[in-house]
């Protein structure tokens, strides 16, 4: 392993890496400076720049110390100044090669290469390489790790086939109007909930209620004014929330380009930090189309792929909130199975519906009991409890019906399609070949109604596809149709 064989990082790393190290060390730096200033101000004045300089110098070390090379079947990275460490990654274990470029990186025209080696979530980061070298490295790693490339013929090929690049087809591109979906992503609404919580900490409601109870018109006026101010504040907060969400969406997904070649799927996006994710086609085993209730009402949807060894949960979002027609088209293109995302799903029958409704109703017992307790504690009117409980129960009934309608399954030539049992309409398509095994689970209550929960285990995505509350015969028929070789010997006709 003589030195010329090892490649070095780009010289511009010297400029880029220290900034990153400084960013990471901010807290430690601040703590050190504060600590120093408690001793004496002059020490802090001189000490702070000195420490910062030291940190910057340390930041330049990676350039001098990191070396890497790609052999026929492995990637080697050597780092460390005092303790030399060599990371070896067999090319077949490399699951993903992503490129990321922050604003500073883009000004200097370099990128960070993030290489994921699958199971352990260990990642090798090469910060930074020039754009061209990074692309070449990515293509090299991709072509060398493809199973066909193991044969002697391709191994002799020094330069990856540049012709393949010409065949990239653009599947999707961001339209800024999609930002209108962003504020309705209610998973982030927990922030607003917290806001309401903090406001109510000030004992707001009691004061208003007291003022209302007074007979004096002036007090009543004050009460209504206070309520008005509170409402106005909430509306302002909502508008601010919407703006922040939309801007955040645009900044994160700016100029999204989803393109496909014969061997890879590439997703590039970002305004300030530009990210480029590449997934091998053989690793993509399915897609998921997700429509949460609020966004579905507006006609939006999100597409993510189920792939083996990608991301922490295995599902990578390749198309953020967009119009349903567009998202459906993209999803169907990704798995090359037209109509699969629009196919009507097999319903699961009246017992499944009853079970879902009953489950939702039982779930409301605790909240309703809580409401009654609160009303009794504060000695408010009983009508409040009745109204609130009725509201909760009717909302949950609507949610239960939506959940039942979203539930279902279907089978196409190449894919198993599952409608998830949730108020959000989530449809997952999984390649039949991607199914490893089956789990058929039934609780005592399900057995009474001859329902089972069918789970297809797979290596892709979150590693399971669950079809809940299926009539037992239907479930077994599906499993037999999907994996006849496996299931034939275990099934018998009744």
């Amino acid at each position, binding site marked *: 392993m003589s030195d010329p064989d090892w490649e070095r990082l780009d010289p511009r790393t010297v400029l880029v890496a220290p900034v990153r190290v400084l960013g990471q060390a901010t807290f430690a730096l601040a703590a050190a400076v504060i600590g120093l200033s408690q001793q004496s101000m002059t020490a802090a004045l001189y000490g702070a720049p000195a420490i910062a300089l030291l940190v910057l110098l340390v930041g330049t070390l990676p350039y001098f110390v990191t070396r890497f090379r790609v052999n026929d079947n492995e990637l080697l990275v050597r780092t460390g100044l005092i303790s030399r460490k060599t990371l070896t990654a067999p090319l077949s274990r490399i699951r993903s090669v992503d490129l990321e470029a922050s604003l500073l990186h883009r000004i200097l025209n370099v990128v960070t290469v993030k290489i994921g080696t699958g199971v352990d979530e260990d990642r090798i980061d090469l910060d930074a390489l020039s754009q061209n070298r990074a692309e070449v490295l990515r293509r090299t790693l991709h072509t060398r790790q493809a199973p066909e490339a193991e044969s002697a013929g391709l191994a002799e090929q020094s330069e990856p086939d540049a012709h393949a690049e010409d065949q990239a087809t653009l599947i999707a591109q961001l339209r800024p109007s999609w930002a209108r979906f962003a504020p309705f992503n209610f998973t982030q609404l927990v922030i607003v909930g917290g806001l309401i919580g903090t406001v109510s900490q000030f004992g707001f409601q009691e004061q208003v209620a007291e003022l209302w109870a007074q007979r004096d018109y002036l007090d009543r006026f004050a009460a209504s004014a206070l309520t008005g101010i509170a409402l106005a504040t909430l509306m302002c907060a909502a508008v601010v929330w919407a703006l922040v969400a939309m801007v955040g969406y645009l900044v994160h997904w700016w100029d999204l380009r989803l393109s496909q070649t014969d061997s890879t799927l590439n997703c590039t996006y970002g305004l300030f930090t530009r990210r480029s994710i590449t997934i091998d086609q053989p690793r993509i085993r399915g897609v998921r189309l997700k429509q949460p209730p609020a966004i579905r009402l507006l006609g939006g949807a999100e597409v993510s792929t189920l792939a083996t060894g990608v991301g922490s949960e295995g599902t990578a979002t390749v198309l953020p909130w967009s119009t349903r027609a567009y998202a459906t088209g993209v999803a169907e293109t990704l798995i090359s199975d037209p109509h699969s995302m629009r196919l009507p799903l097999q319903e699961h029958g009246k017992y499944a519906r009853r079970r879902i409704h009953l489950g939702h109703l039982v779930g409301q017992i605790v909240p309703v009991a809580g409401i009654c307790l609160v009303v009794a504690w504060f000695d408010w009117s009983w009508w409040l409890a009745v109204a609130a409980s009725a509201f909760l129960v009717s909302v949950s009934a609507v949610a239960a019906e939506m959940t039942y309608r979203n539930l279902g399954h279907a089978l196409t030539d190449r894919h198993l399609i599952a409608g998830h049992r949730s108020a959000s309409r989530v449809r997952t398509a999984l390649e039949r070949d991607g199914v490893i095994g089956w*789990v058929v689970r039934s609780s005592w209550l399900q057995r009474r109604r001859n329902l089972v929960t069918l789970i297809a285990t797979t290596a892709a995505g979150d*590693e399971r596809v669950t079809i809940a509350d299926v009539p037992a015969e239907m479930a077994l028929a599906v499993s037999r149709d999907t994996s006849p070789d496996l299931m034939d010997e275990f099934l018998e*006709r009744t």
Partner: protein
Amino acid sequence: MIGNGSNESVTPRRKQAQPQALPPKGPVPASVDSSLPASTSAVGSTDWNIRQPAHQIDPRAIAYWRTSALIGVLVLTVVGAAMLLIPDVGIWLAGGVLFLAALALGAAVVIPARRYRVHRWEITPTAVHTRSGWIVREDRIAPLSRVQTVDSHQGALMRLFKLRNVTVTTASAAGPIVIQLLDEEYAQDVVAELTALTRSTTGDAT
């Protein structure tokens, strides 16, 4: 045992007790709603059922489950009694703990035998099938061609009863199959058998 590509399943080395009465078939299945639209590729009107796996687990499993449940009962009883003795703690709390202990005792007496009737397993030349559970019944099937590791495990209490678990993992985190509570020597045989079977298949197992 398997050799020559015959289609037999792994035969038990020890003579397992003949399964007594088969586990009850369960309530008569409710009729499926006939107004359902036909599935895109339904197998006509044929009804399928998962056939029962061939082998039961070791009979000592009953004693093992009972013992581990009784240990829990013992702990609960001791805690409850101690709470009764401490003057400050309310009588209701202590009573609740003792009630739980009584429930656990009932469970320890009743459940293990029923669970034993449900737990079954089978290995064919191409796949593994286990059935387990009592209130929540679960059938797990996985092909041997996708198996990644085969190992066995023996907890402290299991050592007393000379029992071992055999775990088969696939590339899916949702897919590990555990053959619980086999006789420990027999479990080693099963592991060897499985390892030989899986080694003979190629592939990335994803």
